[in-house]
């Protein structure tokens, strides 16, 4: 019985010692948790952005001309845009408010034909407050790169000649990696052709064969109205002169007709190489 008392007392002292040790580490543990949680919020925001925002604001938030403004842009983070719209609060609050309540009227100086819809549940949208917080955290995470890109000199001066609308052009060797960067960045192809099926998907799936096969099928089709002589020309034509032939089931006029003025022959070759790299 005495050893009960001795061991019991010992256990009590040990418990106190463990608790004291935990108490010493508790502030650090709580900080680690907060840091981890903030990071997970960004992850959650990235996935929400992809499913809800990227079709208008671009996969990498660079915006899509005529649809929605860029979020991964220096002017959002350096205060210029807030000044333009007359917002005096913090950027986080601005983002949160715009996402939750949407944009019933266009902001000063913008002419986007579509309105930003409401996303917050409190305004009839689909997202919970914590999901909106996650989106804000994800968008804020662009700050560092958006500001750095604005300061860096433009990587490639537009010295090369634009490709125009000649679909029989001879192309240099394409680099799929660079084509991917272009599709997801400046040209924004991925938003409709990879991440969504607004336009014909680049990847093969189900009863949809690969792009190469599809192109060959298209030019052989009865109602084909373009000028392409082979599969590669068909793909080039689809990019440079999208309305030459619109596949049944897709509405005409959605694909921008300006790519000929925005791409060099190298760009076109790279994007093609990337397109054909899909299985």
């Amino acid at each position, binding site marked *: *019985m*005495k050893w*009960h*008392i001795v*061991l*019991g*007392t010992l*256990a*009590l002292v*040990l*418990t106190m010692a*463990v*608790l004291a040790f*935990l*108490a010493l580490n*508790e*502030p650090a*543990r*709580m900080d*680690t*948790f*907060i*840091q*981890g*949680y*903030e*990071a*997970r919020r*960004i*992850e*959650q925001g*990235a*996935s929400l952005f*992809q499913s809800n925002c990227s079709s208008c604001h671009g996969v990498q938030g660079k915006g899509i001309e005529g649809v929605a403004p860029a979020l991964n842009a220096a002017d959002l983070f350096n205060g210029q845009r807030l000044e333009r719209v007359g917002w005096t609060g913090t950027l986080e609050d601005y983002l949160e408010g715009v996402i939750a309540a949407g944009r019933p009227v266009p902001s000063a100086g913008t002419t986007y034909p579509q309105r930003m819809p409401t996303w917050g549940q409190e305004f009839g949208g689909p997202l*919970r*407050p*914590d*999901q909106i917080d996650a989106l804000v955290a*994800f968008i804020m*995470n*662009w700050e*560092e*790169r958006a500001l750095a890109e604005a300061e860096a000199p433009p990587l490639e001066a537009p010295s090369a000649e634009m490709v125009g609308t000649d679909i029989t052009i001879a192309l240099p060797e394409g680099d799929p990696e660079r084509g991917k960067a272009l599709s997801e960045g400046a040209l924004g192809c991925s938003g409709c052709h990879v991440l969504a099926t607004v336009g014909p998907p680049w*990847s*093969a*799936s*189900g*009863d949809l064969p690969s792009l190469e096969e599809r192109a060959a099928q298209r030019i052989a089709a009865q109602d084909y109205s373009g000028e392409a002589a082979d599969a590669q020309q068909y793909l080039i034509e689809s990019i440079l002169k999208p309305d030459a032939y619109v596949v049944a089931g897709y509405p005409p006029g959605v694909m921008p007709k300006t790519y000929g003025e925005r791409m060099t022959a190298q760009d076109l070759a790279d994007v093609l190489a990337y397109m054909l790299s899909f*299985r």
Partner: protein
Amino acid sequence: MSIFRVHIPFLDEVKAHGVRKALLLKADDVVTRITAGLSIADVRAVLRDDPPGRPNPRLKPHSEGFWLHMRPTYYHNLVDGLYPTFRLGWLSTYFFAVEIITGIILMVYYTPSPLVAYENMLNILSNVPFGRLMRDIHRLGAELMVIAVALHMLRTFITGSYKKPRQFTWATGVILLGVTLFLSFSGYLLPWDQLSLWAVTIGASMIEAAPPEVVGKTLSLMVLGGPQIGANGLLRFYLLHVVALPFVGLIAFGVHYYKVIHHGHSLPPEAEEIGVDSATRVPMNQRSYFMPKILTRELFYVSVFTLLLVVVAAYFFHAPLEPHADPQVTPLHTTAPWYFLWLQGMLKLGDKVIWGVIVPTIMGGLLLLLPYLEVGPSRRYAHRRVGLTIAALSVVALAVLSFMGTPWYGVTVTPEVEAVAVILPQTHPGPLRTSPWEEIEYGSFEASAWASAPTPALRELLRTFDHELDRMRAAGQREVEGFMIVEDWQPGLKKITMRVVWVDGETGEPGEFSQVAYFHRDSNYAQGE
């Protein structure tokens, strides 16, 4: 002027004995009052295990005090050892006390509303000193309490201790088992994460299946407070968890323990003559007195178990917290808590009404009525072969049913989804998110070429992925290949696409499945939650 005279008796004592002696007397008096009869010297003698004086002052706290009024002054030597009780009833009570204490602390930081409940959890974990420890102990204690209560009941059955005259004690014990299970289950919903929402949704759908339809619908409405689980349901589960069930539990516990003491702890079956209950007639020479023996031992247990709980909860066990509850997103595998897996297993056997409602009700009823069904007078093991065999078979059946309740049995998820879910599970971090962030290098990797991946973490992940895809290959799919594509998405953020492509073995159709996850440098999934 006698109206202003104040009489302080202590001053008389000081006059009579001096300050020192008077203070000692006063202290002795206070201790005697608190212990309801033991002076300082008596307490010291208890702790030193000195023989008691005559008349035995150690009996007084039992007859005069509240706290010990229900505890016996002595136990039979034969029930004092580890066998036959294994201290399981005591242990259940201990865990109940731990749950009440940690539960009250957690209640301080919790609001039962879907708008803030999950945020409250994050606050408890990130902003409340010892908040995580309290939550972990509360969860751990709950699981251990379920185990202790279940084993306690099993032990009572095996030693035949529920037989006449203790049938009613057994019945109150069955109520306590139910209270324990539902306390644990109702606590499940409170964090308002995916785990809780879907576990409770499964449970609630069983309530709804109760026949006839009008009863099931009404019961489900009463519990959930609406057609689906929402703000009202959360509030109701909270009130069940913190008020109704503890209240029922405390009352049932009071009755249960009163009956245990009233009939005496039943002796080991072999120590009694058949049909004779001699627990309350304890010969003088076979008595273990509560003070000092039982008391010091219980204090010893309290400190040792508390130490164990604190250490395990601090370093080895962390209560899971899944993503925020989302009725739109059904996790791949929703399972009931482990102590209800047998029920989930039965649901896979067939009709929801029969297996989910009627059979469990019959089982509960049989359990409650068991002492009135197994009425043979003998408690000896050798005379209860049928009963003990049935008990053993029941335990095996529960284990098998519990296995059947897990996702490994009879769940039809396509193998490509399953393979990706092994790497990127929806309900816990999984191997990818717990890998070192730096080792998940940018690039596109093929699962079958795992050996040539640049880092150990990637090799391990791809090897696991490829191993999972073998099941598709074994099932006759052709050209099965898994890809893992890692992209730089934002500062500190990687986008990871897990992709499976194959050609259907029968139709020759190509198939594709992919899932995207994002992985941040600081997300630190390895820390526990």
